């Protein structure tokens, strides 16, 4: 099956602009020069990732391809593309918006769900915005846990947040709907490699994607920018 240009939503971008409350820079001015891709660290390690192509598809309204892609989830918001873009296009902002839209379509939940343990445990209960728990075994081996580094520097292992600060974080989260969102993504626990048993380790490797999150039916993403029409499934 081939992608059909007549499927694209030409008007989408114009309709989308006023909604984004002026944050959206004019992506239709993209020159397709590829400077963004050229300096993107994510594109350097994942060949199929290409910000330029994603911008093109956003402006053309090729939404099926963007929203169901793994590539949409490979940006890590360094904003390098924004800083080199001759037309001043804020690409990371688009990524942020379209990840929300992708989740609404049921794509990308396997990535988001991993945040749940952190969200409930560190953020809402302790007010810590950067988790001290390092999960990369290589980092733990060579540098150590973040809490250890903090202690060596004479700091408490975890940042202490005042009761008032905690109350504020909780209120803002409740008011903005963040808390209910965190509750909605609940289910997959963050496992600690140092303490987990065999069974947990197995579960960790085969992290199942829930079939539904709230009313949204979850789906597996595709590598849409590797080959035309998309190739294989992304591993959950």
């Amino acid at each position, binding site marked *: *099956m*081939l*992608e059909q240009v*007549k*499927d*694209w*939503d030409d*008007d*989408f971008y114009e*309709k*989308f602009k006023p*909604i*984004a*409350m002026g944050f959206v820079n004019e992506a239709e001015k993209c020159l397709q020069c590829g400077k963004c891709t050229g300096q993107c660290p994510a594109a350097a390690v994942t060949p199929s990732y290409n910000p330029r192509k994603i911008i093109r598809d956003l402006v053309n*309204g*090729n*939404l*099926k*391809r963007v*929203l*169901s*892609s793994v590539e949409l989830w490979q940006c890590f918001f360094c904003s390098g593309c924004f800083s080199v873009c001759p037309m001043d296009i804020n690409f990371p902002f688009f990524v942020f*918006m379209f990840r*929300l*839209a992708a989740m*609404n*379509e049921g794509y990308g939940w396997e990535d988001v769900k991993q945040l749940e343990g952190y969200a409930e445990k560190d953020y809402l209960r302790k007010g810590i915005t950067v988790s001290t728990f390092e999960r990369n075994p290589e980092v733990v081996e060579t540098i150590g846990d973040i809490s250890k580094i903090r202690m060596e520097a004479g700091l408490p292992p975890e940042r202490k947040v005042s*009761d*008032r600060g*905690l*109350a*504020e974080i*909780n*209120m*803002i*989260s*409740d*008011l903005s*709907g963040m*808390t*209910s969102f965190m509750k909605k993504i609940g289910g997959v626990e963050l496992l600690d490699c140092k303490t987990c048993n065999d069974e947990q380790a197995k579960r960790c490797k085969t992290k199942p994607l829930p079939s539904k999150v709230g009313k949204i039916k979850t*789906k*597996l993403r*595709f590598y*849409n920018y590797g080959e035309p*029409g*998309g*190739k*294989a*499934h992304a591993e959950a």
Partner: protein
Amino acid sequence: MADNFLEAYGKETSRDVGTRTMNYFRELFSLEMPLGRMMKMMPGMIKFATASKDTREDLFKFMPQMMPMMKQAFTGKKEE
């Protein structure tokens, strides 16, 4: 299971997906305050008010600014 995104979407065009996405964004960024949304905010405010004397006082100071929004939520009408 679908092999690529075109199969996954079947007969749906990007136009359908675009309409769905726009509806989602419109709801997400809407500045209106229906009752349901207001009720969702209540637990946060109660938690904040009961956290300490200091936070309670703070919230009450903010009340005059909240009133129009609350009225709008309960009556469904926007004040001029």
